[in-house]
């Protein structure tokens, strides 16, 4: 070992993509780095394996990767039938559409008879089929595996609309030759929660991943960020003391160092920081992903 083998996408801006210097950046990438910081003490001890939607589960099931952090929707079938464990949700999203403005489409219902590009093996493909069947609409799918080629087919006019998780559509629009010609529809036809996936054979590993993700949320709730965490070491607040490892002994219970959560926040940041550097520049709003006290649905158990 010595590093965490992390399965990511082949390039989804904001979640897992290579920056111009060749480093992996994104919300999902930060989850892997957080786990590495907690377990190995150094967030850089991660190796990334880019995977397409069709390859991701086999790679995890066969042990090729330790952790799958790749905008993967948590579904019953994946949890129960594929034998994959999803310790936590790190992003709430919805399946949406991007269409050409010239087509005068106001909502998803106007897409009756349209040709829609999707990627195979995604929940988007199933959601679109279900949505159209439920509303007695028809559509013609164009199924292309790689994201790059699928979006190119959409830009070339092969299909009228492209369906994907709405958070990624902003990035798709940004890549268009003429972004102003396209519009992301406001409708969300499904509510997929994303989360990292692991194989449940090692229960301890599942718990580590879960609490690493929760740690980033808890840090935000406690007001701890990468810049303020050093000062927090001197805090009298028992919640903060438990978080940084001065009390409670939680690190030891997970088989980690006492300051595992401290390392996560110091090296990777809290959830707000991760969101701000990865998704905010793309024009994505936190929406549901705000903490419960800010009006969102993120409500994670505290460290106690």
């Amino acid at each position, binding site marked *: 070992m010595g590093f965490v083998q992390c399965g990511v996408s082949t390039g989804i801006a904001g979640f897992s993509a290579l920056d111009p210097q060749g480093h992996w950046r994104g919300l999902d990438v930060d989850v892997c780095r957080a786990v590495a910081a907690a377990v190995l003490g150094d967030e850089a001890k991660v190796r990334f394996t880019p995977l397409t*939607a*069709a390859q991701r*589960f*086999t790679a995890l*099931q066969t042990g090729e990767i330790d952790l799958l952090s790749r905008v993967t929707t948590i579904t019953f*079938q*994946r949890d129960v*039938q*594929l*034998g994959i464990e999803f310790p936590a949700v790190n992003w709430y999203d919805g399946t949406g559409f991007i269409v050409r403005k010239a*087509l005068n489409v106001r909502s998803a219902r106007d*897409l*009756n*008879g*349209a*040709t829609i590009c999707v990627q*195979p*093996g995604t929940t988007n*493909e*199933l959601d*679109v*089929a*279900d949505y*159209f*069947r439920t509303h007695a609409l028809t*559509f*013609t*799918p*164009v*199924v*292309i*595996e790689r994201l790059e*080629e699928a979006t190119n*087919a959409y830009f*070339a*006019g*092969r299909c*009228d609309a492209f369906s994907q998780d709405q958070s990624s559509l902003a990035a798709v629009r940004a890549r268009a030759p003429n972004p102003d010609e396209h519009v992301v529809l406001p409708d969300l036809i499904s509510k997929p929660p994303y989360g990292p996936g692991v*194989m*449940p*054979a090692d229960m301890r590993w599942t718990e580590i991943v879960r609490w690493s993700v929760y740690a980033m949320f808890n840090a935000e709730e406690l007001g701890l960020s990468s810049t303020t965490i050093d000062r927090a070491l001197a805090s009298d607040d028992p919640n903060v003391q438990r978080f940084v490892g001065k009390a409670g002994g939680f690190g030891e219970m997970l088989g980690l160092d006492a300051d595992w959560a401290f390392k996560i926040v110091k090296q990777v940041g809290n959830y707000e920081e991760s969101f701000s550097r990865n998704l905010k520049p793309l024009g994505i709003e936190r929406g549901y992903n705000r903490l419960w006290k800010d009006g969102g649905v993120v409500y994670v158990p505290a460290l106690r």
Partner: protein
Amino acid sequence: MSPRDLSWNNPRTRAVVWQTAAVAIVAAAAALLTMQTTANLRLRGITSGFDYLDRAAGFEIARSPLSYSSRDTYRRALAVGLVNTLRVALLGTAIATALGLLIGIARLSRLRIVSALARGYIEVLRNTPLLLQLLFWYALLQALPSPRDALQLTSGTYLTDRGLFFPRPVWPGGWSTLALERPALAGFGFRGGASISPEFAALLIGLSTYTAAFIAEIVREGVLAVDRGQTEAALALGLSRARALQLVVLPQALRAIIPPTTSQFLNLLKNSSLAVAIGYPDLISITNTTLNQTGQAIEAIALVTMLYLAMGLAVSFGMNLYHRSVAPHVRPVRQS
């Protein structure tokens, strides 16, 4: 009659022993592999078995040749994929053979220009990767106009980047009423009529032209393998060059042409799986989606392997029968 000699000295005994041992080893390896795999699957909590075939697929398939909706089972989806593969493979084989024959003969022409053009075709298409060629044809077809500005070829036939749309015969009120259902522009595209998708067209053109290049070379070599004396004798009998080729040379050339051409047909069948790259829903493409949705990698791959094996063996068997009919076994003449 001597008693059966079962000793080690008897070559037949040795043959039986070795063959039994070989079979036993292979069977043991297969059994071990299967046991280990099932144990691993159970350990990881991954379900196995072919029950998933009866579950609803949940995804749509564009322009399916069989009636299919997302409510149908995975088994039906696979059937659609199989039909799609067969469609493109059979049509592709027919076109590739005709085209290959034509170009092979053109290659043999005494007209320098014709021969050079044929040579150019063969060299270019044989030496570029098929995937590139498919992407090229697909990109070319994407350059066609959108449905709103469709190219109208004849009344009711439109060429667009969404496909070729043409009228199809329908019987709206029973046998006696035959009518033509024409495609009409409505909403996002054309409604009614029949169509050929750009994915299918690109795959068909790409596969046919590519395989034709190889078949052309095989035809040329087959024809050159026929004794020059045959052509000379045919010409001496008063046949024109073309008739000599058709009646005397080609039938004999077939003996040398058929075996390598069988290989090319099998290649075409296997190459059709590149459909995944351009979005044509063939067997591999559907299996890919099924595999990802259900996670049952082993069953899905095993199934698709069996299907390709069956199709390939059928092609080989048919071609071998044909080969035997044009090349009856001739006893070598003993020189006395």
